[in-house]
């Protein structure tokens, strides 16, 4: 008769950079049930957003998540711009795509590295992170900061990218692409790695929709839903197809993210090619009034902002639903039945970002 034990996994754990705790009910080596415990990084940002005025909030939402800060600011600004209303100049919309995709690119690199580290492939982790530094240098050149670039503002963007820098971005992207060609096969075609990730943590298409999965988790289960298809910023004028895989396992999720690196590079090239001249920001007039829901695609999936304003300086309510929050229930459904050694790999396969989740 096998004994049932409960193993707490996290919040501080060598392979887990994020403070989430999973209570794993085990029978021998097999997980029976997983109960997520969060709350280790809850700050109360939604409440703080009601205390600050709507312009200051841009800086607040950027700090919900340091990995995808630009996309948080973008989603918030889109919401306020709908409420003002305020027309964003075309050049600003394209610059938003460029910075947004650069953010996606560095985030996917970050994840690919951490994922490799989760099954102990440390040299590959280093490879991806070295490549990521190339993208970080681009942020520093174009925006002056590595992490929180603060270039999105209500009505447009705060800085322009000069032609010189655009040329440099294209040049760097070539290097990034070459390095990816070198390291991605090491992740996806290696025999040992495949043993660790193929067929682990399977999520069927039907389950994925039922459990509300978003982003790469949803697309790896064969559902072609990418919020960028709704055409915010300048995405309606760019050509792209969502990356879809059908297997729904950790391998498929890794593949979706790896291919999205290439997709991002392609999108930046298109955006630079079609970048129109002109103003980079419109002056917002008036105060936001009304209610609106906006969505953008983060590296981890769909990000939703709902803003309710009443014509005053302060917002009535700002609601943030981040992708990891939506991907926790699928994770809870994926874990039962897997072996204990696979728990870190499966947990990382949803790309958990707990500071997003708890705000």
């Amino acid at each position: 008769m096998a004994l049932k034990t409960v193993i707490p996994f996290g919040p501080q754990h060598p392979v887990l950079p994020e403070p989430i705790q999973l209570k794993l009910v085990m029978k021998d080596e097999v997980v029976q049930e997983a109960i997520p415990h969060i709350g280790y990084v809850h700050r109360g940002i939604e409440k703080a957003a009601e205390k600050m005025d709507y312009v200051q909030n841009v800086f607040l939402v950027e700090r919900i998540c340091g990995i995808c800060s630009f996309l948080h600011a973008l989603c918030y600004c889109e919401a306020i711009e709908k409420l003002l209303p305020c027309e964003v100049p075309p050049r600003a919309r394209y610059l938003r795509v460029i910075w947004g995709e650069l953010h996606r690119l560095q985030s996917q690199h970050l994840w690919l590295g951490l994922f490799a580290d989760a099954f102990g492939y440390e040299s590959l982790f280093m490879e991806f992170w070295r490549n990521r530094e190339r993208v970080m240098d681009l942020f520093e050149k174009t925006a002056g900061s590595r992490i929180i670039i603060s270039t999105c503002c209500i009505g447009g963007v705060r800085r322009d990218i000069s032609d010189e820098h655009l040329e440099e971005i294209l040049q760097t992207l070539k290097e990034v692409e070459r390095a990816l060609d070198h390291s991605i096969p090491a992740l996806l075609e290696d025999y040992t790695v495949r043993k660790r990730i193929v067929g682990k943590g399977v999520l069927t298409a039907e389950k994925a929709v039922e459990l509300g999965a978003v982003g790469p988790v949803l697309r790896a289960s064969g559902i072609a839903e990418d919020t960028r298809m709704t055409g915010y910023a300048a995405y309606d004028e760019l050509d792209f197809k969502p990356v879809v895989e059908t297997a729904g396992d950790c391998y498929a999720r890794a593949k979706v993210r790896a291919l999205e690196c290439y997709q991002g590079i392609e999108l930046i090239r298109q955006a630079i090619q079609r970048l129109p001249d002109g103003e980079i920001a419109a002056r917002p007039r008036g105060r936001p009034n009304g209610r609106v829901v906006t969505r953008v695609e983060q590296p981890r999936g769909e990000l939703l902002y709902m803003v309710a304003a009443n014509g005053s300086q302060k917002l009535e309510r700002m609601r943030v639903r981040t992708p990891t929050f939506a991907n926790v229930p699928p994770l809870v459904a994926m874990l039962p039945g897997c072996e204990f050694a696979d728990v870190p790999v499966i947990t990382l396969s949803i790309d958990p970002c707990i500071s997003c989740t708890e705000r």
Partner: protein
Amino acid sequence: MSAPPGGAALPDIEACEEIELSALRAAVQRCRDQRLRFITITCMDMGETFALYYHFDEKLKMRHLLVHAPRAAEVASISDIYFAAFLVENEVRELFGVNITGMAIDYHGHLLLTEDNEPTPMAKVRMEG
């Protein structure tokens, strides 16, 4: 919400269906039958009532259900229809004090907050007890 001075219609959430509290579970079940993806719940404290928005996604088009729940009213959980709702229902109950009952996993008010936190920090009116 009052109309702005200009008289133009305020931007509001599109495709929003306002329903009675008692009809909530049936409406959510309909969404489930149409295989919509559940996104989240947004709660707004309106003073006398809570406004609860249930957001759904249908092939990248959003659909919303709006329920007005009086402060003390019992709101039935939808986590048996959409399992994914259990996290956000716990959060809404914890931060606003909405009385949601019958959740699939119940954290008893300790999902995000600990014992020594002030209860219901997001609510605008402090609940007694």
